[in-house]
């Protein structure tokens, strides 16, 4: 059973790496978008596992993007290094903010993270000299000179890295800390779990991932602006993907990103106007009828049968 599992993973991995060889430029660009949102979705889910609903995804994505473009354009940092620095800046800001806001819970935490994302965008809009203000900022030397195959491999690498981190969170003591915090904080702390430490740690790691994705995304186009970079897209799509695929797992957000990513492209071709309506209907139907998501429902079905 284990060998089958690892062979399947290996095959999928080879297929993912070799994908650009067999497909056209259009499909590669779709795949890049899917990988981008998949990584955001997974990072959002990793925070959700602690019981904290974060709406800050788009904010840290935007921070990473702006950091990368600014240091490349003004300080001449090369694009690859700028992606790492983008992640580090997002992570450091998450650390400082997390110390302040991770005392909050539930809806209060959620609404504060949402507000913070807007605050980032307002600040950036008003720092004309550094950020270019409302019209945004351009960097002329872009990542891999628009070579979409290389960009695909970069995004795949970031996605795989995030998958590995997510699985580490699932297989180490972090899993027990995070799940006990979500279930019952009083029980967790009475049994030695340092709740605040784990919340900060997960918040910083996931924000860093969001910063890296934002930086890599901005570097592909060499452009950031307050509207496009802090768009609610980078918050709402990842959340819908995780819900459709199944929350609290690594595979769920991956499955959700592929389903919603492919169907949105297909719907766009089918009906250029109004495809978002169908898209919305899909999400509503999934939440209503299979609240555990596609992967979650299948997993629970299999384990039910096994225990019978």
């Amino acid at each position, binding site marked *: 059973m284990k060998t089958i599992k690892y062979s399947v993973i290996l095959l999928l991995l080879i297929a993912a790496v070799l994908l650009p060889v067999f497909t056209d430029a259009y499909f590669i660009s779709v795949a890049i978008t899917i990988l981008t949102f998949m990584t955001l979705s997974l990072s959002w889910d990793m925070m959700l596992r602690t019981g904290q609903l974060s709406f800050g995804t788009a904010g840290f994505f935007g921070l990473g993007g702006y950091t990368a473009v600014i240091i490349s354009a003004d300080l001449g940092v090369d694009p690859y290094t700028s992606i790492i620095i983008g992640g580090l800046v997002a992570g450091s800001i998450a650390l400082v903010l997390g110390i302040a806001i991770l005392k909050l819970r539930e809806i209060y935490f959620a609404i504060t993270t949402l507000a913070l994302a807007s605050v980032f965008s307002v600040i950036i809009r008003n720092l004309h000299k550094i950020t270019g203000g409302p019209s945004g900022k351009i960097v002329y030397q872009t990542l891999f000179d628009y070579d979409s195959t290389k960009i695909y491999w970069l995004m795949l690498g970031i996605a795989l890295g995030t998958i590995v981190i997510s699985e580490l969170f699932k297989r*180490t*003591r972090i899993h*027990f*800390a995070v*799940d*006990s915090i*979500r*279930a*019952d904080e*009083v*029980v*967790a*702390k*009475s*049994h*030695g*779990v*340092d*709740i605040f430490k784990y919340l900060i740690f997960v918040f910083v790691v996931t924000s860093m991932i969001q910063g890296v994705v934002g930086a890599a995304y901005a570097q592909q186009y060499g452009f950031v602006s307050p509207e496009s970079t802090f768009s609610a897209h980078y918050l709402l799509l990842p959340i819908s993907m995780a819900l459709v695929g199944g929350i609290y797992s690594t595979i769920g957000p991956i499955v959700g990103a592929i389903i919603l990513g492919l169907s949105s492209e297909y719907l766009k071709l089918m009906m250029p106007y109004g495809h978002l309506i169908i898209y919305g209907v899909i999400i509503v139907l999934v939440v209503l009828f299979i609240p555990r998501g596609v992967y979650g429902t299948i997993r629970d079905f299999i384990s039910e049968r096994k*225990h019978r």
Partner: protein
Amino acid sequence: MDSILKVQNVTKHFGGLVAVNNVSLDIAKGEILGLIGPNGAGKTTLTNLISGIHWVNEGKIIFEDKDITLLPTHKRCRLGIARTFQIARPLKNMTVVENVMVGGLFGEKRTLRQARMEAEEICSRIGLEKLDTHFDKITVLDIKKIELARAMATNPRLIFLDEVMSGLNMDETRDMINTVRKLRDSGVTVCIIEHVMSVIRELTERVIVLDRGEIIAEGPYSEVSMQHNVISAYLGEDA
């Protein structure tokens, strides 16, 4: 008396309600102490103050000569203070053995493998089976045992058992009494909060009686249970 825990003049109020009023007590190393009193006497609040779920308004708590009054809950656990909850609180997103592992992983900093082995060992010692089932298919007794096993896994020096016997039938109670005895014999000091008086009579060497947040009596159960003020606290002034 060589004491493991000293509570000194502790007061806790919630708004205008004084839940614990100027309480001082010592728990001796290695004893089984009973904490009794009518509903609302402040027994659970006192446990919450000692384990750090609530902060005291006044007074000091000293554990093994260390002032822990201002220490957060998880650090008190790591020092060796464990407790169960009156209304059992299983972690519903985990299996039986995973619940117990939480205690071992964070109360005592074991590795995953060690924590699992330790958890399995504790479960078999107290007769908890079906380790890999989720809690929703488990009996009341098993949920009570999870509470106990999870607290034991933190490797405590002092354990508070908050009504672990309530809701159990006679065989199960007997089972639980033996478990508590074995626990004490392994070197853990036990403070047991209980409404089942036969259990208190059988297990404890000493009881402390709380009423309306104050200590009204202290001593062996046989003596204390005869005192007029204790009887009237339970049954009312006319009894």
